[in-house]
């Protein structure tokens, strides 16, 4: 066994992991299990059969037709048909249904009199995603009936139903979703959450590997194994962590692009490079956080503040352009904010290499800047034993 040098640091690191099952689990098994769980969670892709209640106070053939059309929507499941709107309140408040469709009395009669009443959907907007899905499906069902009737009424101007339909739809809005056209939530949520989870796990693992030396006052032994060179000690310590997470990253890409069958619309290689850079940036951020704090607990707390909340500020759901200036500014300081559009561009969008390069430039800064901040701080701290051992 080499007594000093890079290999000695690595083998010291591996011996530590062998002795500490908890640290090994945090590096390997816990992330693997969590990522698998998240992938499984979204495996249905698109939520179907969301329970709603229908109150039909019209009792006409038309209202029954509307109920049939709603029942035939894949996204909806009519689980209750109470007699009055009042009777649906407990159903909504207890969470048994996500929404209530109300067809008012005399709905069909009033329509024939050209004084139509609207069909009302009351949806539970505390469940935003579900409310959006239900709203879309009920709207589609109602619209299909409205259009048919408009065509029938237009037909009196001659030309039969086909020409009437052409006239009614003379000017249309042709609404198209590109890239992930089915709006699969597996591609969307799992696709964004898995990389950000990996980013967080990588920072935690690197912070733990580095921070425990200060907590355990074992900095001297660590440096000694590297022959006194801090940079060699850091490379030897962080290389195993980085290697594990690069493999995880490849596994994620392989899962989406291979196993789940979403071939990248852009370049697989550019996507892999981007996620690899995110992992390297994670390790650099860990160096910075430990350098600032020289305290494992504080560094982990900062990881919570800086990395774990990053998702909300990245614009993955609520767009960055719509955020206030403070949140936009903070989001601009997080690596994941820059990784996200690069991944979506190469994986789903098929963005050009020049767009990729534009997106990667700021991401690369998250390797350089944290190291510039963290390395001098660490270099000073390893010479100050009185600062070690902080809990």
């Amino acid at each position, binding site marked *: 066994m080499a007594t000093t040098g890079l290999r000695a640091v690595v083998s010291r690191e591996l011996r530590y992991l062998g002795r500490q099952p908890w640290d090994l689990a945090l590096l390997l098994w816990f992330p693997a299990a969590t990522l698998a769980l998240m992938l499984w969670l*979204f495996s*249905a892709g698109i939520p179907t059969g969301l329970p709603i209640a229908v109150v039909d106070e019209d009792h006409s053939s038309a209202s029954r037709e509307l109920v049939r059309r709603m029942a035939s929507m894949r996204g909806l499941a009519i689980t209750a048909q109470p007699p009055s709107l009042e009777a649906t309140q407990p159903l909504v408040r207890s969470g048994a249904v996500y929404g209530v469709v109300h067809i008012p009395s005399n709905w069909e009669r009033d329509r024939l009199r050209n004084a139509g009443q609207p069909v009302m959907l009351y949806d539970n907007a505390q469940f935003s995603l579900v409310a959006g899905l239900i709203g879309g499906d009920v709207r589609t069902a109602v619209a299909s009936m409205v259009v048919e009737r408009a065509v029938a009424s237009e037909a009196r101007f001659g030309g039969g139903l086909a020409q009437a339909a052409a006239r009614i739809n003379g000017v249309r809005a042709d609404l198209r979703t590109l890239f*992930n056209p089915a709006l699969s939530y597996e591609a969307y949520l799992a696709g964004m959450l898995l990389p950000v989870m990996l980013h967080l796990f990588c920072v935690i693992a690197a912070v733990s590997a580095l921070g425990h030396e200060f907590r355990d006052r074992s900095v001297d032994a660590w440096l000694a194994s590297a022959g006194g060179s801090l940079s060699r000690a850091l490379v030897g310590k962080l290389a195993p962590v980085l290697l594990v997470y690069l493999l995880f990253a490849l596994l994620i890409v392989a899962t989406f692009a291979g196993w789940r069958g979403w071939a990248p619309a852009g370049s697989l290689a550019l996507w892999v490079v981007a996620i690899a850079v995110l992992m390297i940036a994670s390790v650099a951020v860990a160096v910075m956080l430990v350098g600032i704090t020289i305290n494992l607990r504080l560094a982990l707390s900062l990881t919570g503040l800086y990395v774990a909340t990053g998702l909300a500020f990245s614009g993955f759901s609520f767009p960055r352009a719509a*955020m206030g200036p403070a949140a936009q500014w903070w989001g601009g300081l997080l690596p994941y904010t820059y990784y996200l559009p690069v991944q979506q561009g190469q994986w789903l969008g098929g963005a050009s290499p020049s767009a990729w390069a534009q997106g990667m430039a700021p991401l690369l800064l998250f390797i350089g800047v944290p190291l510039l901040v963290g390395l001098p701080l660490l270099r000073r701290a390893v010479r100050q034993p009185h600062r070690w051992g902080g809990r």
Partner: protein
Amino acid sequence: MTLWRALSHTVAAALRDRGLVILFVAAIPIYSFFYPLPYVTQSVRDIPIVVVDLDASPMSRDIVSRLSAVAAIRNGGNASSIGEASDALAAGQLAGIVVVPENFSRDAMRGTPTAVTVFGTGAYPVQDKAVLGSVGAVVQNVAGGITAARLARQGAPAAALMQSARAGPAFIDQPLYNLARGYGSYVVAAVGILIVQQVMLMAIASLVGTWLEGRAGTLFGARSVGLSALAGTIAGFALFVFLALLYFIGFVFWFQDYPRGGNFAGAVAFAALTALTVASLGIALGAWFADRERALQVLLATSVPFLFMGGIVFPREAMPAPINALAMLIPTTPGIFGFVKLNQMSATWSEIRPEFLNMTALLLLYSGAAWWAVRARRQEAPE
């Protein structure tokens, strides 16, 4: 040790630990201002689109000018071709492209079918929905005017045209509870409860782990530990959790002007039950981890899975049954549902029965686990 002594010792220990007092007292207020920041505007606005106007007619300019009045989108200018804009859409720099085809105005006037095409991006579904919805509504408005003009030419009676112009919508989508469909009102109401659980679990488990390391505290310091000492410790920790929950449902929801206070008495009672459950779980985890920093390492990465397993962001109906069963072991699963129902949806106590039963079962489970774990650790020989 009596219950009261254990309680006061626990509270004092939490306040005296200079590292952990930040978690016990300061972290929740910090997160309560920090986390809602992205959602202060509540609704999607100003997301960039471009218009490819191949028609360049008064009618197409009318569409463009109406688009500029829509709050959700910001017209980033005109592109001369779809190709010019599509890379920006793919790269996520644009949220949508609106294409007015050549001869749009002419075709619309003479009744040849034509369409304004709107492209959104499924890589960002929230933006996709906002773009397609808002631009679609504008185009439908313009189309309605064109259709009315054509019907008048065909000789439809003016009275009928007036009537249809004044007709109400055929369909109204009315939100309940979160009446403005605020994004923050929906996300923070759920995540606030998660933040309290996660921060408090970290704080409690870290302190219990520290006690175990130094064979100190109410659970590992005294010669013998009875049920009253454990109950007092749970109560002492639960006090912090309870105050944090009250701070969120009382102050934060008011300060951010989210829907709140539907069933306040019920929410306070549920907060007490939740606090005891989280405190018990924290003690059990702390005794298991037996280390001051371990709780942070483990729990930091669980927030995102816990949130999605809770079933308020992504519906339970779409999750595999084993994951739903596993989720019932996490206090936030009944916690978020229970608090949203009580605070935002004004549910009665009987309407949160499933959440109440789940939380009560978890309290029994985790207080039992805490008792077992503390005793098991005490029987180990001190190092």
